[in-house]
């Protein structure tokens, strides 16, 4: 008897015992649902937690500072920099060409005088905006980055959007800025759309140690972000800070503001995988730049998450095992019911392996159908749970989560694993049926 013949016979057997087959199949499906949902949710949660550690950026991101490395910094998660060292395109390329480097995004931070102008639009025609009359300006930092590659940057958009790449009139602010201008940290709508005037400094030649000329420009707040690209409350396209640098280079070194000789103040380097972070950090260290990554923190959190995964996976596996034992039980019961049929089959010349094949295919079919249904149900449960959690978090004024879709390995692996488990569970009944003495099976 071929496998396809056995499949036809198994399908007929399952159909004849429709209710029992359905129950066994539902048991497998429920077990698979639980396993798939737990693995998907825990996997999604893991990646989100790790992602949160890097403020929405890639977990394998490394911050490189335009400074020589401090020898003690390599084994630490925190940045320990030595003397400043220029960081330009050549060094960027050298790092980019290092093994296991997925991407390198340049960052240029520039100091700026910040003048919040919430009511600027009302006085747009006025030669001197009223906000300049106020005394609440302060020195902050503009963080310029290539925002076209924001996915490689440790940035989370809390509200609104990022400035368009290359835009010279848009800015995203952090909640630190909202706090400074006394806004409710959860009322993002109060800051989005407002205006800020910036003045980047140039120390004028012969202008004295404490005097500088400003390059003024207005920017509209288009979003609120959390970011760890660099220290600062304002995220702008790198073109903006590059213009500010050019302006500053036209001056001289001052007591506070030095001429920014380095084209970049830092880099965000993304390693191929988390496991490669240490090696890439070593490479950058050897090239001669201070760098940092939360690799120890991520590693220790991953260990705890892994334990949670094992526990959740274990619970799901136990549920699936119980369900698969249901398949075993169903088939054992079927042997007693098919005692006579097995005998007839053997009298017609079926070998032991033919009978075993019949039962194994039946177990496999229960596993495949149960696995497919369970995987689909698991995906649905995961989606619903993600929606409920996301809505709850947003209702609580917290950042929502997107647990993402069902991982492909789970979609493919779950039905296969379930079918294999069902076949394993069907081995004992299949062997028992196969070894049944033919005369005994015929009721002699």
């Amino acid at each position, binding site marked *: *008897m071929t496998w396809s*013949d056995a499949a036809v*016979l198994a399908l*007929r*057997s399952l*159909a*004849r015992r429709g209710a029992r087959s359905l129950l066994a199949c539902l048991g497998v499906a429920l077990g698979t649902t639980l396993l798939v949902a737990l693995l998907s949710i825990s996997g999604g949660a893991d990646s989100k937690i790790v992602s949160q550690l890097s403020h929405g950026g890639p977990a394998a991101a490394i911050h490189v500072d335009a400074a020589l490395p401090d020898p003690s910094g390599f084994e630490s998660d925190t940045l320990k920099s030595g003397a400043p060292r220029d960081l330009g395109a050549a060094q960027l390329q050298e790092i980019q060409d290092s093994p296991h480097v997925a991407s390198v995004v340049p960052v240029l931070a520039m100091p700026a005088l910040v003048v919040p102008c919430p009511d600027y639009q009302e006085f747009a025609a006025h030669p001197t905006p009223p906000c300049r009359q106020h005394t609440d300006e302060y020195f902050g930092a503009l963080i310029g980055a290539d925002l076209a590659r924001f996915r490689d940057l440790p940035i989370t958009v809390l509200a609104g959007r990022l400035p368009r790449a290359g835009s010279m009139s848009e800015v995203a602010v952090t909640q630190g800025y909202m706090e400074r201008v006394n806004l409710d940290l959860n009322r993002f709508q109060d800051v989005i759309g407002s205006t800020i005037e910036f003045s980047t400094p140039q120390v004028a030649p012969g202008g004295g140690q404490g005097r500088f000329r400003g390059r003024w420009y207005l920017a509209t707040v288009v979003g609120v972000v959390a970011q760890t690209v660099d220290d600062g409350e304002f995220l702008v396209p790198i073109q903006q800070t590059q213009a500010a640098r050019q302006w500053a280079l036209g001056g001289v070194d001052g007591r506070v503001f030095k001429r920014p000789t380095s084209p970049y103040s830092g880099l965000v380097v993304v390693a191929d995988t988390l496991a490669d972070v240490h090696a890439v950090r070593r490479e950058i260290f050897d090239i001669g730049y201070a760098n940092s990554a939360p690799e120890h923190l991520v590693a220790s959190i991953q260990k705890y998450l892994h334990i949670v995964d094992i526990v959740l996976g274990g619970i799901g596996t136990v549920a699936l095992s119980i369900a698969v034992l249901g398949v075993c039980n169903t088939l054992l019961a079927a042997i007693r019911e098919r005692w*006579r*049929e097995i*005998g*007839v*089959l*053997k*009298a*017609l*010349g*079926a*070998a*032991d392996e*033919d009978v075993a094949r019949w039962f194994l295919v039946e177990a496999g079919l229960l596993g495949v159908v149960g696995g497919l249904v369970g995987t689909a149900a698991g995906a649905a449960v995961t989606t619903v749970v993600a929606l409920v959690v996301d809505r709850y978090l947003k209702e609580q004024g917290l950042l929502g989560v997107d647990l993402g879709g069902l991982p492909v390995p789970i979609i493919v692996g779950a039905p296969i694993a379930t079918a294999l488990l069902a076949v394993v569970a069907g081995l004992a009944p299949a062997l028992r049926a196969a070894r049944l003495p*033919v*005369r005994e099976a*015929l009721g*002699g």
Partner: protein
Amino acid sequence: MILVRGLTHRYGTGPDALTILCAVDMDVPSGGYAAVMGVSGAGKSTLLSILGGLEPVQQGTVSVGGEDLSRLHGRELARFRRARVGFVFQDFGLLTMLTARENVELALTLAAVPRSLRREQAERLLAEVGLTARASHRPPKLSGGELQRVAIARALANEPAVLLADEPTGNLDEDSASRVMELLERLRADRGCTLVVVTHNPELAARADQRLRLSRGQLVRL
């Protein structure tokens, strides 16, 4: 042909062992027709099972169609059953989840007949037993006589040398029983196969070339 010499068969071991067949000898020529009678528990079905390779030969020699059954085990016995013998049971032994035609096809499936030929051969066999119109019906929809005719068609599927029928009319009314026996005899004559029938019915036994009775483990010719 069937050749049995000194066949002894016991159930159980030790002092509680029950000797069901004791040094039985039997000869049925190729194409012959033998009827075995005896009271219940006399060992008729055991003898038939041994002849059909369903029970191992414990002692003595049994040769069916030139094959020494005492030398066959496991897969070889399965092959023997597939190729050499056809069984007809008192309770028909049809799989209720399959149609009449599929039941016949099952024997062809086990014999590895290509799928494309199975249907045609099964329909030809059902036509031979007069059940063309019932080919797509499942056993619960068929009468006793029809069920037994399906079972006969299935038994003949692989053109066996020996046809073994265990009380083939035991569950049938008189009319159906007579028609089933006529069918078996006609098919035997047409195909030239050896027929061994176990029966309680002396009238049916009287139709055989050889009438044998099993009593207290001994097989005697009547």
